[in-house]
C-alpha cells in the first residue's frame, strides 16, 4: 500500500449550538471520532473534537463555552465518545448533558480523590481548581 501523507489538520470553530449538526454532517461524510481535548482557558473551556476521515486525516472541531454553560453530548451520535465525555466532565467539571452512560463524575475518581483536578480556574472565581 502507498504511504499516506497527511497534511496539517483541518480546523473549524463551531458554536455550541451547532455542534450536534456539525458532528452529524461529519459522520454522514464517513468521519469517525478520534478523541476530545479540553483546555481550561480561564473563563472559558475550549473543547477540541478530533475526527478522522476515511482518508485518514484529522478534522478538528473547536467549541468554546463559558464555564457554567451546558454542552450537549455527542454520545447519542457517536457512542465511542461517551467515555471521553465522562472524563472531561469529571476532570474539568464541564456540564455535559444527555450522556448515554453517565458515570456521574465517578468514572476515574474516587470519592476521596481531588475534585475536578484538571480545572485551573473555577467558574466565577480566580481560585485554582483541584489537584492541590
Amino acid at each position, binding site marked *: 500500500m502507498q504511504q499516506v501523507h497527511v497534511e496539517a489538520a483541518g480546523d473549524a470553530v463551531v458554536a455550541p449550538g451547532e455542534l450536534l449538526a456539525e458532528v452529524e454532517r461529519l459522520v454522514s461524510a464517513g468521519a469517525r471520532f478520534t478523541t476530545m481535548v479540553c483546555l481550561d482557558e480561564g473563563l472559558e473551556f475550549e473543547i477540541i473534537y478530533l475526527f478522522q476521515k476515511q482518508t485518514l486525516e484529522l478534522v478538528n472541531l473547536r467549541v468554546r463555552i463559558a464555564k457554567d454553560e451546558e454542552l450537549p453530548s455527542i454520545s447519542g451520535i457517536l457512542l465511542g465518545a461517551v467515555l*471521553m465525555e465522562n472524563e472531561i466532565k469529571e476532570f474539568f467539571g464541564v456540564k455535559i448533558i444527555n450522556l448515554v452512560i453517565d458515570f456521574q463524575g465517578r468514572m476515574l475518581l474516587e470519592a476521596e480523590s481531588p475534585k475536578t483536578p484538571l480545572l485551573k480556574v473555577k467558574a466565577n472565581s480566580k481560585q485554582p481548581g483541584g489537584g492541590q
Partner: protein
Amino acid sequence: MARVTFPFGPQHPVLPEAIQLQLTCEDERVVEVLPVVGYMHRGIEKAAERNPYSHNVFLCERICGICSFIHALCYCELVESMTKIKAPPRAKYLRTIWSELSRIHSHMLWLGLLADSFGFESLFMQCWRAREIILDTLEMTTGQRVIQSTCTIGGVRCDIDSEMKPEVHRQMKAFKKELEAIYPVFARDYTVKARLVGKGVLPKEQAWSLGTVGPVLRGSGWAYDARMLGYAAYDELEFEPVVENGCDAYARMMVRLREVVQSVELVVKALDRMPDGELAVTARRFPEGEGIIRVEQPRGELVEYARGNGTVRLERLKVRTPTFSNIPALLLMLPGCEVADVPVITLSIDPCIACTER
C-alpha cells in the same frame, strides 16, 4: 428469569490489571455489562503539567510498562514537533527497531495471556518463553527489560552498535524459530479455534463508527495503521498494515499473530538499512503552540495532544490511548456471550487499563 449480578474484577485471576466489569447474567449468558474503571487512574496528565517538560518522557513511559517505549516515542515526537527539531536518521531507525521490538513483546505477552485465559497453559508458557528472547534483546540494547528509558527528546540515548548488531540478528532468528512453532497452534488448533471463532463479533461498519483502533479495527477489515502515516522510519520501510476480515476474536488474534511476524521482518530490515550518524540533537527552545501526534501502539493508534506556552512546563498534555477507544466496542461485544467467553472476548481487544486510565 433468574439473574446473577456479580463483579468481574478488579481483582480476578484472568485479569492482570484492575478493571471491573459489572456483569449481569441469565443462566450463563451475559445480558448486561457495565464497566467500572478508575482502579488504575493516577493523574498523569496533571503531573505532566507540573513537571518540566523533559521529565515527562520518563513519566509517559510509565503510563504503561507494556507499551512504554512507544509512549516515550510519541511524547518525544510531539515535543520535537513543537520545538521544531528533527531527530537524526539513525535515531529514527533505532526508534523503529525498539518500537517493533516492544510491539513483539507486547503481542507475545498478549498471546500468552489469551492462551491462559482459555486454559491452554502450555501455550502460554511457550509464548512467554519466546518473548524472553525479545526482552533479552531489549535489555542488551537498552539496559532495561520492559521500560527502556532510551528515547529522549531529539533522538535516542543509546545505540545498537556494530558489535551488537549481529547478536540482535541472531536473536531475531532464534525468535523466529520459536514463533514458527507457536504460529500453527494459534492459527489452526481445534480447541483454540473453538474458543475464538465467532466470539465477540464486531461488524465492519460498527468497528469504524465506534472509533476502534488497532488490531480490533484491522480484524474487522479496515486497513488503518498509524504507521502508515510514516513517523520514525516507517515511511522508508515499505510498511503495509495487516488486515483480517473475520470481525471476531479469532481475526483479532490473527492480526496480532501476523503482526509479530511482520515486526520481526521490520526489525531486521531496519537494522540492515540503518544509516550511520549521530544519535540525538538538543532542543534550543521550550515547546510552544499546539501539537498532535498519532503513532501506532501494539493495541492501536495512540493520539497525543499538547499545548505549550514557551515555558518549561506544558499547559496541557492529553493522551488518548488505544484501549480507551476500544472499550466501547467491548461493551457492545460482551452482551449475549457466555460467562466462559467473557475473558476471551475481553482480552480480544487487548485491554490495557494502565494506559486507559493514565
